[in-house]
């Protein structure tokens, strides 16, 4: 019975991917991509990756969908001229050849994967006690492969700097997104007033359980960012001007604390990002708490895109 569910998921996902690639209308491809993200969440659950499923549910089911729907709506007027453009037949045949070759090579690799599979699970199980956290994924993210997580936080910051650098000169240091003018007594404002507090509770809960159960800062921060955007969409709050010093300090807080703790490791435990013995758990918690607000702000501001209006006095 579980095989039937898996086969059904695979058929649906491949069918949606075909539609995303071959649909004529861009908007229809975008909505198919949202459905595709939801189905991927189910696949991660089937592959025993509940942490991954939580991330995909938050990012794929929420933020990416909103980002692409917004972009497709703004580009709607260019749809007709864009549909007139077509690749030549020769290019299509070439692309079909390349994609067929890639798929067959990967399929051969999948069928030839070594058995028994190599795994680092034993090593994680042997060393997890020294970190003091119960969720092996959190242990990997913040202890065994902490360097990856640090670099990721920095990459996110760079992506935001990249987005901001696309601001037209006349709007530099202004507020991102357009001015929202929603009816304060409308349905949208009602949803934001009721859903946002509940969503914040859920986000903090997912963040909090991350030490011992599936969850953590990325998933929690994504939910909080979505709730922040919801409040802005309803017109109950405005986006901060990107020149605000407090905003910029909050953005770099997480990475700076992370790097500082890394150098602390050089002094106390002999290596960058090494944690001295019994302090592993408290230090991991400090990093998580410092990263959480930075990640929330970065994810929300990434979705708002570059400033489109000057900061009001």
């Amino acid at each position: 019975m579980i095989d039937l569910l898996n086969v059904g998921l695979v058929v649906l996902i491949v069918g949606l991917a075909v539609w995303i690639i071959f649909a004529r209308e861009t908007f229809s491809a975008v909505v198919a991509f949202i459905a595709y993200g939801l189905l991927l969440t189910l696949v991660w659950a089937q592959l025993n990756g509940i942490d991954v499923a939580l991330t995909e549910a938050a990012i794929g089911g929420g933020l990416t969908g909103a980002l692409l729907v917004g972009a497709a709506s703004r580009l709607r007027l260019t749809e007709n001229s864009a549909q007139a453009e077509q690749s030549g037949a020769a290019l299509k045949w070439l692309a079909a050849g390349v994609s067929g070759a890639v798929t067959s090579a990967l399929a051969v690799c999948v069928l030839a994967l070594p058995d028994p599979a190599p795994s680092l699970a034993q090593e994680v199980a042997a060393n997890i006690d020294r970190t003091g956290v119960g969720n092996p994924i959190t242990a990997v993210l913040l202890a065994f492969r902490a360097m990856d997580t640090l670099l990721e936080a920095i990459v996110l910051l760079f992506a935001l700097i990249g987005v901001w650098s696309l601001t037209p000169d006349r709007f530099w240091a202004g507020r991102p997104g357009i001015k929202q003018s929603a009816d304060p007594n409308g349905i949208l404002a009602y949803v934001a007033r009721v859903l946002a507090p509940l969503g914040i509770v859920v986000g903090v809960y997912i963040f909090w359980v991350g030490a011992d159960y599936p969850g953590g800062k990325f998933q929690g921060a994504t939910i909080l960012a979505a709730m922040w955007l919801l409040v802005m969409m309803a017109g109950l709050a405005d986006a901060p001007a990107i020149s605000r010093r407090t905003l910029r300090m909050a953005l770099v807080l997480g990475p700076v604390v992370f790097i500082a703790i890394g150098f602390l490791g050089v002094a106390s435990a002999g290596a960058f990002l090494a944690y001295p013995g019994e302090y592993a758990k408290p230090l991991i918690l400090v990093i998580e708490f410092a990263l959480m607000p930075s990640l929330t702000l970065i994810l929300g501001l990434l979705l708002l895109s570059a400033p489109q209006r000057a900061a009001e006095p």
Partner: protein
Amino acid sequence: MAGATLFGLCAAVLIGLGVFGLITHPQPLRKILAFNVIGSGVFLLFGAIAYRGAAAGMSADPVPQALLITGIVVAFSATALAVALLLRLHDETGSASLSAEATNKEPSGGHDA
């Protein structure tokens, strides 16, 4: 183990579809979508490998799964950057095309960047 092979083959098909779309679609937004399909295919392949690595009482290998979480978040930030570039191109030229004759048309926004 059968599930891992099934999803692994599915990942191979997704990556192939995404490569085709990335090469043939002239519209940038469709290229971004195709790129995300490739990305999810790679993630799925990684997830299938993690699933095969179940050992030591864990239902899957946690190291690739942790890297997957990192990957999904970074893929989102790359998509956001690409969309921001595309919207700026649209504001600047009034078109969302990468072809030379479309972008050489009279710009409507002015060159203030």
